[in-house]
């Protein structure tokens, strides 16, 4: 049960139940679709840019608690950041998810995203947490093809 509480922290449960920025954005500057073929999770991500800075972000789709909460918290975290800052944030987030449990990992700069540290214990769920971020990369590049976790 303790591992489960690590994975399903209250913040994650809360974002799953009430995802933030959960709506389509008809006037988005960037848009991409993401798909996790393993579990069928799908999401669409929308970005509005102000020069090099993300001024607004939203998403729609269907996914598990980890993927929904990750998308919800990601949209909150990237709003107002420059693309370089977002890239650094993703790199830290990815390190957090993929560092083995017995190794120390820095949570510097991750702020609320730290709640995903429990995912480390569940390697098959890492892709759930990164689907939104893969889709973000595709949206920034404005790729027409669907971002996939596989």
């Amino acid at each position: 049960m303790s591992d489960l509480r690590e994975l399903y922290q209250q913040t994650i449960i809360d974002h799953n139940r009430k995802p933030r920025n959960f709506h389509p954005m008809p006037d988005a500057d960037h848009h991409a679709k993401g798909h996790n073929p393993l579990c069928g999770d799908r999401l669409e991500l929308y970005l509005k840019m102000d020069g090099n800075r993300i001024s607004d972000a939203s998403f729609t789709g269907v996914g598990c608690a980890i993927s929904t909460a990750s998308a919800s918290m990601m949209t909150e975290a990237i709003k107002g950041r420059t693309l370089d800052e977002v890239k650094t944030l993703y790199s830290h987030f990815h390190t957090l998810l993929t560092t083995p449990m017995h190794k120390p990992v820095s949570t510097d700069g991750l702020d609320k995203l730290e709640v995903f540290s429990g995912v480390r214990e569940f390697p098959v769920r890492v892709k759930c947490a990164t689907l939104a971020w893969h889709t973000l990369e595709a949206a920034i590049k404005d790729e027409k093809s669907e971002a996939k976790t596989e």
Partner: protein
Amino acid sequence: MTHTITSTLNPPASSPWTSADVRVDFPILTSAERPVIYLDNAATSQKPDAVIAATTRYYKTMNANIHRGVYRLSVEATDAYESARAGIAAFIGAGNPREVVFTRGCTEAINLVAMTWGLQNLKPGSTIVLTQMEHHSNIVPWQLVAARTGAKIVVTPVSNDGELDIGAFERLVANGAALVAVTHISNVLGTINPVQDMARIAHRHGALILVDGAQSVAHMPVHVGELGCDFFTFSGHKMCGPTGIGALWARGELLDAMPPYQGGGDMISTVSFEGSTWNMVPHKFEAGTPDIAGAIGLGAAVDYLKRLEMPRIATTEADLLTYAEKAMLTIPGLRLIGQARHKASVISFMLDGIHPHDIGTILDQEHVAIRTGHHCCQPLMDFYHIPATARASLAFYNTQADIDALISGLRRVIEVFR
């Protein structure tokens, strides 16, 4: 190990047995260090000692290539391989062992039919009738062959309860269909399709019928003659046998008329650069050294199932299904996907507001193994407008205690998400 082999070789033959009695035949289910409550039998079954021992015995005592050596080991290996074929043929009610072709599994068996019978017989405008509940492995091979022949695919609709619309099916077949390919039991819904009636309808309108038996052979008595189908395909690993082995059964005259699937050793009669001639059926379809150990293991698996008696396996699983569904419906917010009148022990379900993937992870913490996802049935998921389901699929070695563990795990899921 010896004593357990003896126990499975001398079972309580035709005496009543319970799930708890047969469970001890499965080493993975009785491991104290790694407890598992295994409810993913539609994906693959566990293996009894008798099967593991038969496979090992081949490698330890008779390992040699088959159908060629004049020496003792090769003769023994050939005998073991061919008597496995005979045992499997008898198990599914085949008239003659030569009608059973070993393949890598059910998927390869369907591909074999598509790429041999299909390429030979389908023409532009020919119709292949599938159903909404087919596994990808009974869809994609037909798409491949349709793309090459110009044949078209039509789909039999399914009701919300998970039953095929047989009236619609007959209309599709009557429209000049060449082939019907249908699953015997749905790996998502558990629906047992009326394939005997469907075979009659297909034949009445001049179509052939392939039955995908991946989910049925280990769970109910199957007699291909009584089903009246033309092709029947299945996998070894879902029926207590090893992975990497399966079989195609087809009526002998169909096999005789079909061109080879792959070329190589063993499938030929003569080879010259001017041309080659084919070996007789079934060897015509078994190019190269086959999975000899796998075939022998599958032979041991059908011997094992035969001793337990398929009707008894079917009633044991039916009782478990009733027990499980009744208990599951006491869970608030639980919805069953698939409630056909004739249903095997496959239970797909959803929990209100909780994604199947999360259910799977939390149950795993309780050592309960279920499957979550689209189960290789994306068109069926689309029909129900769901991305995935959670699925518990039961076998005769599951007990009521396993179901109780599932139920308490599901209550834990709800607790985590409260």
